[in-house]
């Protein structure tokens, strides 16, 4: 029998079944596309939009129908967040639920979305069009999830490279902490300079310190002094012995001769008076009171040797050329008494009273100590002759924010394997994450470590176009020459004052235009005999013991170089201007903050002697726009008219000690 040349019935059945199955699957494909998450979200938005907007506004708004994207061409980034976050730039949606809520704050004014998109600041996968893939929470295969609030400032810092970006407080705090901790000494990090690392030179430390103190210090600097800058290197006891031997053997620069000093005549009480008179407390702290620019001195007598201290006070730059300590012009007797005060009154009661003589040290131990010194990279901070090396001891952190971490990096510490957790643990307890880590323990608090993490995360591969980056250029070192330069160096003006952004921040008075602000005679007098102009400020200009010649040299220089021609205008007020100015002074309530004579507030500078102190051009410029000269000043900008400024200046120029302070 021939096989029928027609298809058997079961094939028809298979045909129908397969065909229907195919149609079913195919319609699934369509469903998946046309019921995509973002489409339903947009439908919800249209419903809400109808409620919060009037018909006219509704007709003007672009329809929420279709994928929206922001394409940042210059950094080749695509953000489609606004496909769902449809109300971010529309104030009508302040109370709408997420994802439609208006963006908080004024961020979109300063960072318009068409120029910055969303993920530049927030992180996340901008290309995605659904909640999960946008990396609102961390997802596999996307290294840059949306940053939580406590880390978002890391993204600010990727573009804002200046030390203190506005309104990014955690980031600014983290960067300040990095500068203070001196991370740059061991790691390459953009935006920080080796000049910021402050550590004494150690070539002659053998003359300086007592062995007991040194051992204690090396074991844990913060145990000796909670605010110590030096971190704890977790040294073994024998390492401490070796290192102590090595350091005590360092006697390259002999101290100035103190053999002629008759210590029996020393008067510690007089020394205490000298200490107060010279305003040492502006920089040095004793028993919790005083400045932090110099070392704490509560138990300095148990730390340093007397002869070395005498030499140091005679000339601090003798063995510490880079010190911020100024060279006072003190009589030898005053120095003797000061040393006596420091070494006799300021002692640790538990420490031995007399240091052992500088004696023989085992060369083997010294050599072992040198190896310890090198191993721990002590020379990174303590510049040390030929030991300094060009390569830094720690790994480069130039793109630390792009580092990937593996669970194995955590060595059993229980934490999500994220970079922020890794950095946090590393900062808090460096020894936990690596065998035999040489990174010292900084004793960061949780809050400090968190801010440093933010600052480190902001340090990413530098592939942003220049137009995207804001940066405050590093101040150029200012090193004047000649006689003036020698005085600036001797009195270490730049430890506290700034010129062109270079120098310390202890003083509130930059020197850039000081010659146009202050009268010549006042400068000369004040340098020789400084007094408190701002009564409420603890840190004051030290009493240098400057000679009149020196003061004149400085004042000459100030008056010819540190001037601003715009301030040097002749001042010829109308006859009754001063009277009107006095009325204005009362009307504006200036006395709330300023003292004249005996009365007034303590917030602002004392104005009693203004007529002999300030130049009228400066007063006018200051009153017209205080914020221009000192951003963040407490002085209010009253929006004074030019004639009011002139009146007030005329009044202030009439003030002098003789006129207001005492009876004429």
């Amino acid at each position: 029998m021939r096989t029928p040349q027609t298809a058997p019935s079961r094939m028809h059945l298979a045909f129908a079944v397969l065909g229907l199955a195919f149609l079913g699957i195919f319609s699934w494909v369509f469903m998946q596309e046309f019921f995509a998450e973002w489409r339903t979200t947009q439908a919800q938005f249209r419903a809400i939009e109808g409620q919060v907007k009037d018909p006219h506004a509704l007709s003007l708004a672009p329809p929420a129908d279709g994928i929206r994207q922001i394409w940042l061409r210059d950094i080749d980034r695509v953000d489609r967040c606004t496909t769902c976050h449809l109300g971010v730039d529309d104030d009508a949606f302040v109370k709408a639920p997420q994802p439609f809520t208006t963006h908080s704050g004024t961020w979109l004014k300063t960072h318009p979305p068409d120029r910055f998109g969303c993920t530049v600041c927030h992180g996340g996968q901008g290309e995605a069009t659904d909640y999960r893939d946008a990396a609102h929470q961390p997802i596999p295969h996307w290294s840059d999830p949306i940053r939580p609030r406590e880390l978002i400032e890391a993204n600010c810092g990727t573009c804002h490279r200046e030390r203190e970006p506005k309104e990014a407080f955690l980031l600014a705090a983290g960067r300040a902490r990095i500068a203070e901790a001196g991370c740059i000494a061991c790691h390459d990090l953009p935006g920080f300079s080796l000049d910021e690392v402050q550590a004494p030179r150690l070539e002659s430390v053998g003359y300086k310190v007592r062995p007991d103190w040194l051992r204690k210090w090396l074991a844990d600097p913060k145990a000796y002094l909670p605010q110590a800058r030096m971190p704890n290197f977790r040294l073994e006891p024998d390492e401490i012995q070796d290192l102590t031997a090595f350091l005590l053997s360092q006697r390259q620069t002999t101290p100035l001769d103190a053999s002629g000093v008759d210590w029996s005549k020393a008067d510690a009480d007089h020394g205490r008076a000298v200490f107060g008179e010279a305003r040492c407390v502006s920089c040095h702290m004793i028993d919790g009171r005083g400045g932090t620019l110099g070392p704490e001195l509560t138990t300095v007598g148990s730390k340093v040797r007397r002869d070395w201290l005498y030499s140091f006070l005679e000339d601090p730059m003798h063995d510490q050329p880079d010190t911020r300590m100024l060279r006072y012009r003190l009589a030898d007797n005053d120095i003797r008494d000061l040393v006596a005060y420091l070494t006799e009154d300021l002692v640790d009661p538990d420490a031995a009273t007399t240091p052992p003589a500088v004696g023989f040290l085992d060369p083997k131990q010294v050599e072992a100590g040198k190896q310890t010194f090198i191993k721990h990279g002590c020379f990174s901070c303590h510049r040390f002759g030929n030991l300094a090396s060009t390569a830094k001891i720690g790994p480069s952190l130039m793109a630390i924010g792009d580092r990937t971490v593996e669970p194995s990096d955590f060595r059993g510490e229980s934490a999500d394997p994220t970079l922020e957790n890794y950095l946090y643990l590393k900062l808090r307890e460096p020894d936990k994450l690596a065998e035999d880590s040489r990174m010292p323990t900084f004793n960061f608090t949780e809050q400090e470590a968190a801010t440093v993490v933010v600052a480190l995360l902001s340090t990413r591969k530098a592939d942003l176009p220049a137009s995207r980056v804001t940066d405050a250029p590093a101040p150029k070192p200012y090193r004047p020459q000649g006689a003036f330069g020698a005085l600036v160096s001797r009195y270490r003006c730049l430890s506290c004052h700034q010129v062109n952004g270079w120098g310390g921040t202890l003083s509130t008075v930059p020197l850039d235009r000081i010659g146009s602000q202050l009268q010549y005679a006042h400068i000369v007098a004040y340098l020789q005999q400084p007094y408190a102009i701002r009564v409420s400020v603890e840190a004051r200009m030290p009493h240098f013991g400057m000679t009149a010649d020196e003061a004149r040299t400085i004042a000459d220089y100030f008056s010819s170089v540190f001037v601003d021609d715009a301030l040097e205008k002749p001042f010829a007020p109308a006859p009754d201007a001063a009277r009107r100015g006095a009325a204005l002074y009362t009307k504006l309530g200036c006395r709330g903050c300023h003292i004249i004579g005996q009365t007034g507030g303590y917030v602002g500078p004392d104005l009693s002697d203004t007529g002999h102190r300030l130049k009228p051009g400066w007063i006018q410029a200051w009153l017209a726009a205080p914020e221009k000269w000192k951003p963040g000043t407490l002085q209010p900008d009253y929006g004074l008219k030019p004639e009011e400024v002139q009146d007030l200046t005329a009044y202030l120029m009439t003030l002098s000690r003789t006129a207001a302070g005492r009876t004429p």
Partner: protein
Amino acid sequence: MTDPAKDGDRAAGGLTGERTRRRFLFTTGTATVVVGVFGFLGATARYLFPNVLYEPPSRFPVGRPEDFPPGTATFLPERRLFVFNSDAGFYAISSICTHLGCNVNHITGDGFACPCHGSLYDANGQVTRGPAPRPLAWFALSLSPRGELVIDEERLVQPDYRFKV
């Protein structure tokens, strides 16, 4: 055309139920294939329409109002349009000739002339001569929060449109 029932007829000996069943199944199968083919073509067509574009946006800022002196026409070659600042307000006219897309030249006080095929437009962009089929396009303007004039190429307006800042 399709008539497997007759095929089935001979094979199955003409059982009516069997015949209907075969016809039904085959018709079902064929229908699904036809629907599937059209669905595939439709899906392909939809696929070919891009949902996002890597092009300059159709809404863009062109500059501050002060950048356009009163009584002048400013040609923006990158955007292919003219911005006018008249006494009555700002307006923007496309420089794209509606004939074949050349850039038209603006002749002050006289209108626009296309260098390619000689189309002429009056000062309002209305065709006065030549092969151009439609007047030049007018775009709506608005002011951005940052005080910049914004042109929206999606919003076309009539020649009486003037935008007052």
